[in-house]
């Protein structure tokens, strides 16, 4: 044996999916199709223990997500626990349930930052989010958050329905007072994958969007930080998904399952443990789910001999699972994948056909 022992780094971020409950019904939701019910959710004490364990093993940032994390009555307590543990806390929210009192509570608890999703520049986005009246509530919550001193990222969700208004979405973020915006083309997992044909933009729309973003970055330097995520079906190289499997991130689902990313449960044959069965450290360093695709030893060709293998780490395991049927293959978003051309052609055809058949997120 001449294998070099893999030096496993401690995780830097925890995605805490507190609940799958949500008043929105977004077509692009990345949650699994089989949503976890409220009866199976972890209780407050268990979440606080998870937060403490995470900080002890080296986690620096916690992202409260869901579903809609503000559905949980104990969110403030969990933010307080994160602050006590020295974690940087980020709230990923639709904002439709936030009011002035709740925001003050969260600010007092030490919330570092909030990120609000916007489906468009006005009510037109509500067909995507599935909740009438949502846009106005989001605008109100954004103003209240800023008033309370919590910095704001506007998460501009991009589909073919609004991609031609990306400039207006950037203008809206500036007008709101956000200092950062994510121009987030939908990533096709979970409900988004089910709705891909109804959401994916054409390559021509993508090219125009990329030009708009590039120009805005110049013009808004020092005013608005713009992060840009493209749908990687149209990329040459796959995204460095999660910065590498089980390299930086871990995710705890509402029922306490510990997974390397929010879509990992879609991978057939991986065994997941819960925080009730094992300590986070043990799961991170030793479990089947975390060790299976960590590093580069698992890689087949074209990844194994690729000089980018420690840049993009083979792309996304869940995307390989969804599109190729095998999580152990190269992500077909990569142009070196034998499946790349087929996947791209499929995406282009779906975008061109433009069939708006919507499957709203719901409990089965």
């Amino acid at each position, binding site marked *: 044996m001449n294998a070099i022992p893999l030096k496993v780094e401690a995780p830097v971020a925890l995605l805490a999916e507190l609940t799958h409950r949500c008043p929105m019904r977004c077509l692009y939701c990345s949650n699994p199709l089989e949503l976890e019910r409220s009866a199976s959710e972890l209780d407050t004490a268990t979440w606080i223990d998870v937060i403490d364990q995470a900080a002890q093993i080296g986690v620096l*940032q916690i992202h409260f997500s869901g579903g809609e994390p503000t559905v949980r009555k104990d969110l403030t307590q969990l933010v307080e626990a994160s602050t006590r543990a020295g974690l940087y806390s*980020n709230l990923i929210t639709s904002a439709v349930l936030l009011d002035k009192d709740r925001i003050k509570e969260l600010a007092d608890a030490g919330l570092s*930052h909030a*990120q609000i999703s916007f489906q468009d520049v006005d009510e037109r986005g509500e067909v995507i989010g599935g909740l009438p009246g949502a846009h106005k509530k989001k605008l109100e919550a954004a103003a209240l958050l800023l008033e309370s*001193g919590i910095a704001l990222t506007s998460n501009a969700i991009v589909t073919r329905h609004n991609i031609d208004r990306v400039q207006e979405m950037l203008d809206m973020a500036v007008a709101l007072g956000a*200092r950062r915006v994510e121009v987030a083309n939908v990533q096709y997992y979970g409900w988004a994958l089910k709705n891909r044909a109804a959401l994916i933009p054409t390559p021509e729309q993508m090219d125009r969007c990329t030009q708009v973003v590039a120009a805005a970055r110049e013009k808004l330097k*020092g*005013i608005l930080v713009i992060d840009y995520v493209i749908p990687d079906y149209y990329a040459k190289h796959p995204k460095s998904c999660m910065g590498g499997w089980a390299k930086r991130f871990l995710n705890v689902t509402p029922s306490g399952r510990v997974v390397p990313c929010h879509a990992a449960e879609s991978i057939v044959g991986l065994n997941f443990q819960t925080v009730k069965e094992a300590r986070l450290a043990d799961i991170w360093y030793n479990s089947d789910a975390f060790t299976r695709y960590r590093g580069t030893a698992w890689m087949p060709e074209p990844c194994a001999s690729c000089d980018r293998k420690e840049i993009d780490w083979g792309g996304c395991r869940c995307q390989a699972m969804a599109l190729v049927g095998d999580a152990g293959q190269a992500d077909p978003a990569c142009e070196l994948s034998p499946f790349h051309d087929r996947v791209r052609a499929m995406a282009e055809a779906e975008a061109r056909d433009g069939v708006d058949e919507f499957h709203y997120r719901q409990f089965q």
Partner: protein
Amino acid sequence: MAERLIVREDMVLGFPRHITFRHDDARDRWVILAPERLLLPDDTAVAILQRLDGSRAVAHIVDLLAEEFNAPRQDIAADVVAMLQDLADKGMVTP
């Protein structure tokens, strides 16, 4: 609309609420925590940021560093202003 902050030596800068500069004990290094970002400042940046306390002017930080590292003030000033401008452009330091 907000305007770009241009860093000058007479300014007093600090970290806004959503930016945390702290020591990462688990890895024995300094980090800047920001929305969806983890920055690893180099030794020079750490020396500057440790003196950025929200009450000292940039010029004062330059003086301290020039004395401590026994280096020409002019060189230090250029480095400090450039680094802070870079962080200001990312919204990571504010008046």
